[in-house]
């Protein structure tokens, strides 16, 4: 029985603590890169490029965070991106003279594919109570299989309006820099990056200030309790998968705007990156704990490491993989130690297994 003192300020919750750690590490890492690597890292554009290049990953990481808070998992998100990119590319090429309207249709197609996957997976997980890992694994196979059914060969988009959209960038002059020849080069942000940031904010608000969002936390914390508290567990779980499907479709469209080409290996394994981002950001796979702001910084941490390695003499894909793996390992251990040092009974740990301060 806890005899915690009656301090006025509540102590940080686990999610807040883990999120704080990941924000601090991101800031520290980025600052270190600025000091020791200089160059590009001193320009705002570098930060913006991290956003531009990882917009789709940020969005699916949010999708993962939502289902993980609810105690589930969704490993079909990368497959859905691959499918929507391929379907979108083919659709745009088929309507290359369709004008802006065909872009709207492509957007609806992407979101529709995502919703369809969310609908199917949500139904299987919430109503038929099949393990989410298996359901979304089958979903991933299905999405990847459908992608190659659409086209085995890479498809590049040739659609004038869409190309214009791809090139559209938000230019922020005062964050830019002056090139050697004296020209001012403004910092550029892609529409996808703005979308990703908007998604992070919207999902944050949803999880914090809507009944639905709080219900997700409740079912992840204790499903049985949630049921007796009068929460419709099935419906909540169903909608959490539906939203994660929708977000994966949206991520597919964002990906297409960043790299307008379909390919069987688009976003390969990105589901694992998204899971890693969520974990680094302080979401626990056990459910009930997590925060989408943390997830955002989790993605940025992974992206920054990749960038640092790419700009270092070690530039090679296997070094990037190993660095990400090592980073993930460090975070996982850190979380395990931090959480157990707090000595709570919450994680369902029997008391004999907790680490203790003597």
């Amino acid at each position, binding site marked *: 029985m*806890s005899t915690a003192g009656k301090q006025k300020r509540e102590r940080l919750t686990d999610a807040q603590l883990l999120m704080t750690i990941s924000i601090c590490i991101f800031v520290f890492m980025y600052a270190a890169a600025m000091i020791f690597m200089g160059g590009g890292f001193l320009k705002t554009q570098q930060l913006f490029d991290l956003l531009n290049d990882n917009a789709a990953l940020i969005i699916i990481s949010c999708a993962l965070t939502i289902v993980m808070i609810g105690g589930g998992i969704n490993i079909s998100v990368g497959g859905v991106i691959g499918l929507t990119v391929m379907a979108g590319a083919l659709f745009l090429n088929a309507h290359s003279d369709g004008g802006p309207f065909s872009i709207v249709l492509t957007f609806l197609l992407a979101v529709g594919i995502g919703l369809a996957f969310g609908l199917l997976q949500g139904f299987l997980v919430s109503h038929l109570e099949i393990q989410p890992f298996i359901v979304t694994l089958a979903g991933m196979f299905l999405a990847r299989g459908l992608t190659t059914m659409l086209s085995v060969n890479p498809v590049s988009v040739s659609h004038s309006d869409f190309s214009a959209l791809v090139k559209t960038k938000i230019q922020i002059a005062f964050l830019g820099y002056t090139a050697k020849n004296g020209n001012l080069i403004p910092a550029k942000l892609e529409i996808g990056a703005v979308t990703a940031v908007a998604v992070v904010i919207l999902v944050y608000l949803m999880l914090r200030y809507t*009944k*639905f969002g709080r*219900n997700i*936390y409740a079912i992840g*914390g204790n499903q049985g309790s949630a049921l007796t*508290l*009068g929460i419709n567990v099935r419906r909540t779980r169903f909608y959490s998968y539906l939203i994660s499907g929708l977000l994966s479709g949206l991520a597919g469209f964002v990906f297409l705007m960043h790299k307008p080409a379909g390919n069987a290996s688009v976003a390969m394994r990105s589901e694992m990156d998204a899971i890693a981002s969520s974990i680094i950001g302080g979401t626990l796979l056990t459910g009930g704990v997590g925060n989408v702001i943390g997830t955002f910084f989790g993605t940025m941490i992974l992206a920054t490491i990749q960038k640092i390695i790419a700009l270092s003499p070690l530039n090679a894909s296997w070094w990037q993989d190993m660095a990400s793996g090592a980073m993930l390992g460090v975070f996982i251990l850190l979380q395990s130690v931090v959480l157990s040092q707090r000595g709570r009974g919450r994680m369902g740990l029997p*008391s004999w297994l907790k680490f203790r301060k003597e």
Partner: protein
Amino acid sequence: MQNNEVLRMRGICKSFLGVRALNNVDFTLRKGEIHALMGENGAGKSTLIKVLTGVYEKDGGSITVEGKDAHIRSPQDAQKAGISTVYQEITLCPNLTVAENMFIGRTKGALVNWKEREKRTAEILDSLGIPARPRQELSGCSLAVQQMVAIARAVDMQCKVLILDEPTSSLDEKEVEMLFGLMRDLKSRGVGIIFVTHFLEQVYAVSDRITVLRNGELVGEYVAEELPQVELVAKMMGKDLKDLADLEQVGVKNAGEKDMVYEAENLSSTEARPFGFHIRRGEVNGFTGLLGSGRSESVRAVFGADRVTGGTVKMNGKSVRITNPHEAMKAGIGYLPEDRKRDGIIADLSVRENIILALQVMRGFFHPMSRKEMEQFADEYIKALQIKTASQETPVGSLSGGNQQKVILARWLLTHPEYLILDEPTRGIDVGTKLEIQKLVLKLAEDDVSVTFISSEIEEMLRVCSRLIVMRDRKIVGELTGDDLTQATVMKTIAGGEQ
């Protein structure tokens, strides 16, 4: 009179796979009344409660709330009808704040107004005198406070019927008093309370009426003051008072001056402060004290269940090292844990596997028993302890609480321990099985097994133990034997002489 009735259940029937769990049961609850629902395990109490709260759908019968037909098919329906339940196991979400737990799942609109929620929560907590803060995470509150938060939630929902299902099982006496205060307060506000418990004294302390069920049928409804305690027990058990007389005969045995079996000096663990303790061959002693006094933690240290941090231990005069359960088992100690579900049973494994588990572990990883040997052992103990199970292969999780406890007892008896620790072996168990277990303990003592017996019911301790070790604030504060073994002395020692 009719108008006073807030809940009326008539002719309720419910079967599971052809087995009648409830047969034509009536139940009536009046406004501002605390109504105890009593019965042995398997009498149908929890089935009736679950029908009322929409967890199970009834096969037949009618439920009216304040004269109106209530169609209850889900927990939500029950909530809407004004029926709220607080279970023994806290059914709130540990990862949310107190304020959220108060309001989640029952507010209108899609958005959450945190400020409003926290303000309302502070008011409610204040008015009911509950020591919690709205923004505190629930997992940071004590069990008692969590339970009170659950009640506060129910109260704020303007419930007409409040069901308290074994609310006092994990509370100490002070907390029970606090809870009773809250119950009386609610009663004066006109809430009808259904109180389910195993503690007879508590029933008489707060209840106005008592309804008794047995084998899924209604025995009767009685005014508490007019029903003596002995008669209540007899009605619950459906037997003559013969067995109860037996219960009184169970005498206290004195181990006399036999050899020491177990001695510990300055034993401490991560959960228990250093203490000294010994037990002689064939002795039955007990640790008593309020919940949280350290009685369970002490015996856990003896068994090595928590990490042992110091002290010396002797078995039969020889010093041994006991830092984990495996070493304790090898030294000849057995331990029946306090929380049967969490620490005792392996729910999905069969009765057979559960019975042989400890013996198998003692024989070692590389010496598995043959199937035949297992079946023989299981057969023997199922018969000896009269464990009611469909077969040896039935998963133990599907047995009733009392039978699960017997399976764990069988597990330890099979290892033939010299020293057996039983922590709350009779909690949540029907009176009949309770008696069997008490008799078994005394029989073991006759066979020279030493037993440490822990129970929340002092009466029960006095009946079986020849020596009581009293704990308060995680320290041993007294040891009672012989003539000191009376309820009054024990209480006094527990309370520290202030009462």
